[in-house]
């Protein structure tokens, strides 16, 4: 797995990132500087920085991997990520910039005069932020691991150290520069290799035609796959294999439970179950679940249908290509699943803690709108290309299905391009792009989390009178703490799909902050009690649903219940379609039951909506 070229790509990107971060340190002086770069960032650079921050590991690695795993249905993720900006643009970009708060907690307190509500919002920011760091950490782990040949945990640890260092050294102004640069790196790193891959493997039309020719995914050349002790392969067609040594296996009937689609790792088969077989060096893998009790290097012939790893549902090409394939179709409730996923991503974007804070770096509402539109265009330009990696992966590297390695397809596919030098160069480029992806998003998240911890918990509750230097120190300490927490949690999610983890962060944000922002900006009648209750109910309901799904991975009993009730399983795994309307209903219901908008609501709405050129605008929080 080690690739010196990819390692060099990683190191170059690391040095560049640290260099720009350190260079920018000279400009970072006060807390304001750290938080919003003193609002001096130009719109074009700002749009590039927002895109750079937004295009996370889920965009760079996760979408390609999930497309390879599940096919067409996954296109809803990138389209939703882009469409989320359109929703943000039309409902909140302009008004929220006029209001002039730094973060969602600022908005919650400023709009409703309620420090208690602020506390709730800070808590939810931390929940969403930590959920969103999980997939970035997973991406960091697999990228560093596949480049340097070190364990997953080492990859997570290295990344955490680097990113915390950058954040502590440069704050946000450094990050603006770093992230604008990283957008360019990511766009370059996804498009250049894809063009070379297309030149090498054929046009998109030719690729799809080649994929469609075989109903089972099969490698175009012989491949060797390592089976470790405890691995479980799902074999859909008996296939001849060559082993480097005889190996004991157990064979269980059928393929794994469908629960895989929710992204939770599947529980292993009960030990001792299944018929014990010893496979000779030239033998046939029987249909069913093959549980390896001894390790072996397994050689598959060209054109032999690949076995699927335990976390990868077997996919026939015809269903992989069509709507409602293994992802939505596998859920048992395809329409419900698709719509709930779409709604979560559309409405969740604006609730991500590291996204809104950047919009305040625009000088006025007009610039904020134009920035949001420009971001939509920039990320769209990126998302058109990523799914092609998944298509080429199914055609050229189906052995990744066997090792549950589809999340790494962007990193591993370029190595198959010959001549060797070209393949190495491309591998270095995608590794650098992946580093840019998780480093940019992680630093943005750490700043938001450190802002919430340092600005709110330290600056407002613990030491309200603390001066500038003390606050800067608190911000740095908070960044360190958040980085540590993210790294520890990151160690737990090696077996979860990157994009699925991201979908969960979106669902929680969509169920709490989206209704709060939309009603808070557009409705006179929203009361403090209504806003608080609705935000809490939506956020908590979505979090509980997702935690239940994660726990199902460890509980065969719960998994069995979910398989019997697919609609319930879908709603728990993708709760947004229920929890968003629930949050809206609670907000409206509570507000109507006990009317009485917060004091000064008219002044707040004037600040939100009256055009800047009339000169009424005052930043709500003057700091």
């Amino acid at each position, binding site marked *: 797995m080690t690739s010196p070229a990819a390692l060099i790509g990683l190191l170059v990107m690391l040095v560049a990132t640290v260099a720009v971060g350190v260079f920018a340190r000279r400009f970072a002086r006060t807390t304001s500087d750290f938080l919003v770069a003193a609002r001096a960032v130009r719109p074009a650079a700002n749009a590039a920085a927002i895109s750079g921050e937004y295009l996370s590991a889920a965009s760079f690695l996760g979408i390609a991997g999930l497309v390879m795993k599940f096919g067409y249905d996954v296109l*809803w993720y990138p389209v939703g990520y*882009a469409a989320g900006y359109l929703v943000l643009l039309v409902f909140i970009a302009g008004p929220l910039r006029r209001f002039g708060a730094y973060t969602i907690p600022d908005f919650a307190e400023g709009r409703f005069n309620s420090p208690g509500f602020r506390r709730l919002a800070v808590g939810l920011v931390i929940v969403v932020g930590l959920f969103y760091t999980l997939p970035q950490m997973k991406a960091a782990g697999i990228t560093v691991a596949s480049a340097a040949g070190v364990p997953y945990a080492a990859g997570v640890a290295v990344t955490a150290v680097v990113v915390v260092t950058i954040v502590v050294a440069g704050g946000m102004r450094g990050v603006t520069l770093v992230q604008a640069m990283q957008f360019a790196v990511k766009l370059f790193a996804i498009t250049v290799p894809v063009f070379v891959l297309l030149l090498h493997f054929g046009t998109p039309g030719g690729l799809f035609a080649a994929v469609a020719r075989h109903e089972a995914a099969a490698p175009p050349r012989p491949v060797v796959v390592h089976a470790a002790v405890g691995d479980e392969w799902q074999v859909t067609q008996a296939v001849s294999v060559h082993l480097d040594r005889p190996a004991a296996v157990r064979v269980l009937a059928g393929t794994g439970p469908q629960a895989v689609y929710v992204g939770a790792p599947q529980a292993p088969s009960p030990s001792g179950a299944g018929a014990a077989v010893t496979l000779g060096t030239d033998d046939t893998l029987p249909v069913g679940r093959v549980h390896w009790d001894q390790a072996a290097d397994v050689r598959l012939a060209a054109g032999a249908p690949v076995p699927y790893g335990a976390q990868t549902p077997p996919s026939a090409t015809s269903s992989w290509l069509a709507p409602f394939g293994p992802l939505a179709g596998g859920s048992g409730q395809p329409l419900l699943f698709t*719509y709930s996923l779409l709604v979560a991503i559309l409405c969740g974007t604006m609730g991500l803690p590291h996204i809104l804070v950047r919009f305040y770096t625009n000088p006025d509402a007009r610039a904020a709108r134009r920035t949001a539109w420009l971001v939509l265009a920039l990320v769209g330009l990126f998302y058109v290309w990523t799914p092609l990696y998944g298509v080429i992966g199914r055609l050229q590297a189906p052995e990744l299905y066997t090792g549950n390695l589809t999340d790494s397809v962007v990193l591993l596919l370029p190595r198959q391009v010959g001549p060797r030098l070209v393949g190495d160069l491309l591998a270095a480029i995608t590794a650098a792009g992946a580093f840019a992806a998780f480093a940019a998003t992680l630093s943005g998240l750490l700043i938001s989390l450190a802002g919430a911890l340092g600005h709110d918990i330290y600056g407002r509750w613990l030491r309200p009178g603390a001066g500038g230097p003390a606050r800067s120190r608190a911000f740095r300490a908070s960044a360190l703490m958040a980085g540590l927490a993210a790294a520890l949690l990151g160690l737990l999610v090696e077996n979860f799909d990157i994009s699925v983890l991201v979908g969960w962060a979106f669902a929680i944000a969509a169920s709490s902050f989206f209704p709060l922002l939309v009603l808070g900006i557009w409705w006179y009648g929203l009361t403090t009690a209504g806003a608080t209750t609705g935000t809490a109910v939506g956020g908590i309901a979505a979090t509980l649903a997702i935690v239940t799904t994660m726990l199902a991975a460890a509980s065969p009993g719960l998994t069995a219940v979910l398989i019997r009730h697919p609609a319930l399983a879908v709603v728990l795994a993708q709760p947004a379609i229920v929890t968003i309307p629930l949050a809206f209903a609670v907000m409206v219901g509570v507000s109507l039951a006990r009317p009485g908008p917060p004091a000064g609501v008219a002044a707040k709405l004037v600040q939100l909506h009256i055009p800047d050129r009339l000169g009424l605008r005052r930043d709500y929080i003057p700091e």
Partner: protein
Amino acid sequence: MLTDRHVPGGELRELEEQTPVGAIFLDALMHRQLALSLRVAAILVAVLGAQPLLAWLWPAYGAIRVFSIPLPWLVLGVASYPLMIAIGLYYVRHAETIDDEFSELLEP
């Protein structure tokens, strides 16, 4: 005798001081902007939301190929982006127009 409201810039003061007249102006502005936002959001939801329904009601949709590429992939994975960029541009233009018209009405 001119009333306060007819003094150039008077409406602006009404807004700033949140008088009932100011509230009417604010209401009108918010109403126009919200109507635009909801219209654009409805277009987005219709464009995206129609696709799963189409595939559900007409399974043959998934089998259509254009130059060997399945049509649903082209529609969702490629055409969506220029379409959303165009919808966004439409929104930005109209939202700025509403703001400008409102400003011109009130500016001294």
